[in-house]
């Protein structure tokens, strides 16, 4: 303990309590790994994803319990931050919210994967499952660490697992190519972020963000260029992970090459983890000097919104379309943080975290649902273009209506979760008087409506290009995923306060 007030150091034995979600997932991963060695191939294939989902649910429940720990602590009146090993790892609601998101997201991905395994017998199911669990653990570490070293380890645990997951289909040239591209760009990004971290460490002599933040403020005037460089290098490195423009170019190729469930994982869990990292690093490490560096976030957010949406306009491949759309969503997600540069009152920070989390949850539901529909439709049609969706309304009304809800939500149609999320972010730009960013949000959403309308038109207005007019068989696991996505998207669209109230009552950073 050197000099930071308002923190509660936990004893090492508390690890079992506090880190229970992470520990559960690691144990689960190893259990699946070991079981795979001893079981015959068939039962391992059947059992592994179910075990994985089970452990994810357990981790989800443990995370919910951790909310209780945090609120007990704050209710205790001390308002102190629970942390392990000298602020290496903190337990706060910020981390908890993201952990809920990660576990829920990965569980849905595994649910979707059950069908994927059936279609692709060459994929090693156990390997796939434990890599998912480890990747999720990495994401969790990113959400809860306050030290550059652990943050970096978490980031790499997630990234390296993802590289493998993308390239999982070994007989599939596109899969391997997607993995290679992700790996090369991702590693360069890691190196850049790391290079930035080394400068931050050099100036502050600290790898810890909480302690380092103090030093950053003291050193800011003297080492402004160097610290700005550190900030930018880290921003670029993280920007690649969440695919901010102009660091986004890997994502359409990788999204196309990866198996559908893995694409969903990259789009939701990996992206959310990236944002957890960005928020954690910049709101802690650079909180004191944020007013001087926020402008770069604004530039990137604006650029991302515009380019992501414009690029999607001419896309005919539905997976690449969703990839560009996911790039654009990264721009929206960066906005709440970016506008904090002006009017960084504590209320605004809580509001920004609420906005980001709400949008991420909405994004989780609509993206999972959309990818589940996509999986069914593209498989039946045998291609991944918009043509596959033609006349879907007549062939499978449920799929068509669900897809319509998902894409309208992504575009920001009222009564869907996506609209509320965007509206909420828009209010943030108004609150901090960055009206032009709000305007840009609107303008780019209009473009989004245009290209999503192409999807709707194909589904409802055009006749089917597919010869067979058979009803499409939807596997149970995918039906469940679609239903969850649908319920979530609509429920949050109509009763947003269900989530909003919860988010507003949180002790984000333990306060």
């Amino acid at each position: 303990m050197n000099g930071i007030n308002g923190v509660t150091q936990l004893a090492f034995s508390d690890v079992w309590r506090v880190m229970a979600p992470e520990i559960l997932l690691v144990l689960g991963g190893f259990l699946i790994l070991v079981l795979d060695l001893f079981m015959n191939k068939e039962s391992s294939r059947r059992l592994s994803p179910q075990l994985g989902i089970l452990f994810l649910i357990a981790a989800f429940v443990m995370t919910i319990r951790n909310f209780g720990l945090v609120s007990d602590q704050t209710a205790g009146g001390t308002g102190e931050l629970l942390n392990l090993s000298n602020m290496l790892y903190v337990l706060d609601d910020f981390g908890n919210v993201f952990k809920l998101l990660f576990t829920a997201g990965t569980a849905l991905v595994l649910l979707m994967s059950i069908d994927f395994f059936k279609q692709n017998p060459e994929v090693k199911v156990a390997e796939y499952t434990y890599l998912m669990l480890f990747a999720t653990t990495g994401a969790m570490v990113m959400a809860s660490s306050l030290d550059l070293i652990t943050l970096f380890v978490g980031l790499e645990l997630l990234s390296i697992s993802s590289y493998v997951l993308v390239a999982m289909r070994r007989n599939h040239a596109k899969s391997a190519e997607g993995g290679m591209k992700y790996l090369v760009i991702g590693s360069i990004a890691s190196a850049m972020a790391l290079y930035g971290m080394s400068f931050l460490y050099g100036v502050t002599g600290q790898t810890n963000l909480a302690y380092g933040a103090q030093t950053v403020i003291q050193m800011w005037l003297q080492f402004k260029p160097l610290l700005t460089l550190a900030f930018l290098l880290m921003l670029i490195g993280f920007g690649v992970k969440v695919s901010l423009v102009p660091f986004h170019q890997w994502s359409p190729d990788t999204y196309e090459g990866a198996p559908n469930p893995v694409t969903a994982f990259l789009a939701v869990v990996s992206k959310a983890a990236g944002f957890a990292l960005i928020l954690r690093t910049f709101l802690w490490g650079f909180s004191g000097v944020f007013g001087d560096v926020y402008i770069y976030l604004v530039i990137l957010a604006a650029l991302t919104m515009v380019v992501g949406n414009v690029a999607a306009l001419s896309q005919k491949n539905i997976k690449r379309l969703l990839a560009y759309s996911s790039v654009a969503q990264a721009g929206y997600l960066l906005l709440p943080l970016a506008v904090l540069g002006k009017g960084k009152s504590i209320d605004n920070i809580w509001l920004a975290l609420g906005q980001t989390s709400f949008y991420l949850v909405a994004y989780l539901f609509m993206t999972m649902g959309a990818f589940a529909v996509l999986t069914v439709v593209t498989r039946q049609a045998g291609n991944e273009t918009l043509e596959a969706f033609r006349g879907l309304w007549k062939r499978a009304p449920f799929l068509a209506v669900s897809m319509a809800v998902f894409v309208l939500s992504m575009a920001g149609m009222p009564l869907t979760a996506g609209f509320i999320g965007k509206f909420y972010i828009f209010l943030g730009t108004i609150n901090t008087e960055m009206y032009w960013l709000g305007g840009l949000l609107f303008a780019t959403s209009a473009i989004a409506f245009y290209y999503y309308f192409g999807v709707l038109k194909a589904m409802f207005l055009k006749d089917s290009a597919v010869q067979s007019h058979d009803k499409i068989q939807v596997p149970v696991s995918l039906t469940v995923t679609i239903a969850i996505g649908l319920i979530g998207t609509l429920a949050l669209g109509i009763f947003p306060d269900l989530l909003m109230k919860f988010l507003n009552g949180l002790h984000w950073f333990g306060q």
Partner: protein
Amino acid sequence: MVQNAWLIPLFPLVAYLLLFVLGRRAQEGIVTAISVLAALAGFIVSLLILSDVHANGASAPYVFHWLTVGQNTLSMGFEVTPLNAMMLTVVTFISTLVLLFSKGYLHGDARYSVFYQYLNLFIFSMLGLVISPNLLQVYIFWELVGLCSFLLVGFWYFKPEAAAAAKKAFIVTRIGDVGLFIGIVLIYVATGTFEYSGVFEAFEAKKFAIDWITPDHFITLVAILMFIGAMGKSAQFPLHTWLPDAMEGPTPVSALIHAATMVAAGVYLVARAFPIFEASPDALTVIGIIGGITAIFAALIGLTQNDIKRVVAYSTVSQLGYMVMALGVSAYAASTFHLMTHAFFKALLFLAAGSVIHAIHHNQDIRFMGGLWKKLPLTGWTFLIGALALSGIPPFAGFWSKDEILLGALKSGNTTLFVLGLIAAFCTAFYIFRVFFMTFTGEFRGEKEVYEHAHESGSVMTIPLVLLSIMAIVAGLLNSPLTDHAFEHFIFGGGEEIGKVYDTEWWLAGLATVVALAGIGLSYLMYKSKSINPEALANGPLRPFYQLSLNKFYVDELYHVAIVKPVVWIGHILNFIDKWVVDGIVHLFGEGTYIGSLGLKYSQNGQVQTYGLVTLIGALLLIGAAMYAVGGVK
């Protein structure tokens, strides 16, 4: 019971969804049964709520939190106050009857089921509007009723007039809606809430989060903006032009939407948000003047119109003017009372007119009617009752409510408004009886064959007429001295009085009756006993006035010359610029975006090293700019 008020709009919504699922080929009987039962159920619940409110007074709104934005919470829900309990009852009552009446009127129409779908959607929206506890929700339903009105006016869209009328209704009310929208946004910005209660508190305390305008001016500004919205919906001068044209819609629609319910929404909004208006004497003055002008203006036009529905439509505009004028002079109870009685007798007049039109094969020109009393005795009787109520002859409903408005105008010291109201009352009595005499007495002036076949409509159409007639006779007694002004006590919910209330002045009641009787008498002389020749008058000394009235004071023409023509001319010029400049830019923008999109697409060349290079260039630009900004590089 009050907590179940949400059921009332739910019934028509369920009916709408059911009809939607059944599709447009559903049987007429089933369609009608579903709709009427839903409306009837709503009416019964409304009655229960009415008695509950009568016993226990208003209750707090029932809301759930919809959205939390930082410190502010937006909620959705419903509320029940004496005012909207009354509105709920009136709307559901008239809806039930109109839905029943439409079975006869629309029989055989190819889009019968669609018509009922729209009507149910409208009833749902109207009820939703009435029970909204906040301005945001009001605005949503406000737009929704406007949309339904548009759909129903243009129901016979294959008639060019109907399509044009629908468009006009939509555009003109839209002008008002913009005002309302700005007003609501300003209120939210200034007070941080949409809830009536919260807004009223802020307006009472005059504490606003806006510093570019003084609180008093702000109140006036907001009140005027909201009133502009009410003007559009309630067809107040000069935004009244859409309502007579809207008569192109089916007559049941005119009865329900353009007489009893939707057009009263503007008055309802001003009444519900009355504390806002009360806080600004200037706004009240404007409202009173606009209301007075509308009342006399529409009445004068009504004198010479020959389309039976248009006469009734102008009388609606005129009566709405009365209500608005009453609000302007703070006669809150009188206004809402007139709102109620007017709903009954005007719906009655429209349905009776509809019955006439139906009987003589959809002819609406009174110059080709006459002598229909013998053929349509029941319709004749009910029309007569409606006309007497409208003219304000005791003891019919209109007498009691109109009398209170005139009283309010007089007592407020605004003699001009009082005189205007009195003249309008004279005109009203004259024109409605002109219609009555020309339609039901004398010789039939149309084709003989049509007259021979004319006969009283079936019971689905006559029962609503009879029930409405009863209401047109007795509804006025609710607030008469005979019942100790029961309505007033009810509308104030036992709490303090809103606006001003005066004791009945019997001499004024007498004067109003005499004026109305004079109007009827003149009408009798001109159109029944023919002792005064209207033709001679019209072509004689009064010709200019006659032409002025016949041509609706040339307002449409004025709009045409003053607004449409210049706009068209400017349009021509703009069109030129538009075609060659703006279009070019828009195209450039659209095409440019698309080309940009293609460019971005093809920049994605599949080479991972290119991606890395782009990343690097982006990074270098960013870092370079940053270094330049912080002065690390000179």
